[in-house]
């Protein structure tokens, strides 16, 4: 069995090949259909949150426990001796990796997970490093898209909201571009997709278009990926003016394709009205649940050789 991810670090989506992404998605589906409660028996996984992130941490820790592993760790680095005594991350990583079979980490500084991977003797999974990467969010997004569409190939995917600061959106765009998807970017100009992502798409000759409102494209889509337009990025008058273009309401879904699914990394504030929740297109809560399966898949792949391409 060939598992290219065994004992590998998972730091950044661009590090992963299309085949590796497919392997993770397939494994997530397999584990969702057939739980493996003893796969990580006798394995210890460290949960290292140098800054708080309750949702991600609970999802990771649930994934470990559902595979029969044990969790050690901390939920807020500021309250640990690591934070209070001024130890370097490099030294912390050397010690933590000697206690555990793998660890996942969240850190407020960009590049922390990459640095950790260079000093760790066990696989490191990036649970978010500042504004840089959050690869497991992208993996759960990919799994959810695959689950709802039966394929990742050639989909029409719209991203709405804060495309400038949303690392989730950046990584998912990079991942889906490996599968020939077509993109629609819907954002206020001040929160448009960053140039480096656009340049990557141009280099790969990926089709994309820019739009001012959801209505312009909603009827063409397979996936509508919503994010929050953050009020604090605008003055009050400007925010009131733009926000209506970036709020999804149930009455905007009358002509959409049957297979449309609406995703959101959560938490939502007011960018999807609650009447959308009862439509067959809403899938954001299932998406959050899938986070556990995607993280189970990842841990299973990096810590065991049970799965892999035949």
């Amino acid at each position, binding site marked *: 069995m060939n598992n290219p991810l065994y004992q590998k670090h998972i730091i*950044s989506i661009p590090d992963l090949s299309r085949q590796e992404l497919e392997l993770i998605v397939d494994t997530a589906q397999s584990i969702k259909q057939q739980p493996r409660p003893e796969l990580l028996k006798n394995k210890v996984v460290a949960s290292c949150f140098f800054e708080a992130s309750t949702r991600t941490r609970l999802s990771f820790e649930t994934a470990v426990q559902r595979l029969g592993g044990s969790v050690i760790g901390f939920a807020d680095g500021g309250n640990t001796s690591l934070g209070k005594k001024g130890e*370097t991350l490099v030294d912390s990583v050397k010690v933590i990796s000697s206690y555990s079979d793998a660890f996942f980490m969240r850190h*407020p*500084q*960009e*590049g922390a997970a*990459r*640095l950790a991977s*260079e000093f760790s003797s066990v696989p490191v999974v990036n649970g978010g490093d500042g504004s*840089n990467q959050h690869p497991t969010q992208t993996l759960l997004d990919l799994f959810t898209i695959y689950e709802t569409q039966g394929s990742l190939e050639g989909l029409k995917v719209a991203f709405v909201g804060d495309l400038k600061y949303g690392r989730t959106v950046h990584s998912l765009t990079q991942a889906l571009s490996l599968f020939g998807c077509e993109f629609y970017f819907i954002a206020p100009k001040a929160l448009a997709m960053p140039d480096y992502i656009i340049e990557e798409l141009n280099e790969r000759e990926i089709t994309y278009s820019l739009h001012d409102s959801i209505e312009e494209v909603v009827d063409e889509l397979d996936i509508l990926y919503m994010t929050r337009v953050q009020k604090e990025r605008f003055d009050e008058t400007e925010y009131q003016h733009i926000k209506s273009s970036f709020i999804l309401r149930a009455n905007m879904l009358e002509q959409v394709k049957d297979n449309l699914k609406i995703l959101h990394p959560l938490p939502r504030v007011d960018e999807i009205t609650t009447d959308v929740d009862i439509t067959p297109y809403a899938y954001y809560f299932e998406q959050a649940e899938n986070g556990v399966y995607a993280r189970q898949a990842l841990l299973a792949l990096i810590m065991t050789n049970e799965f892999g391409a035949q």
Partner: protein
Amino acid sequence: MKKKLQVEAIAHGTVIDHVPAGQGIKILKFFQLSAAQERITVGLNLPSGDQQQKDLIKVENTAFDENQANQLALFAPNATINVIEDFEVVRKFHVSTPEQIKAVFACPNSNCISHNEPIDSNFYVRHQQQEIKLKCHYCEKTFDRGLFSELD
């Protein structure tokens, strides 16, 4: 009409030619060429064959190693380096941008982990739309060369 050299010839050393006008002083500063106490001759805003102006630097008794030559490419991508012995050019080569630059520049991203840890900075050199950009190995952000104070 007899041609007259505008910059005096050197016996032994290195001549850096085809430096874009304005970059000569930056190169002197970045490579700390004056620190070695060797004689340096600098020509600024000299006429160039392509009607553009250029800078030129002659450093006596000093040789650029490959690493320095590659770093030089960040200032002057089309520069040529002439190695001089006994007033003769014994070797002439073009600089080429390196694929990676370690331990030279600090990351412009103040929240990059490389500022706080006992590690060397590390950048990948990218060519985007005929511009040289540097991508940080750690924070994965890509920067224009103008954002590096060392290159300014």
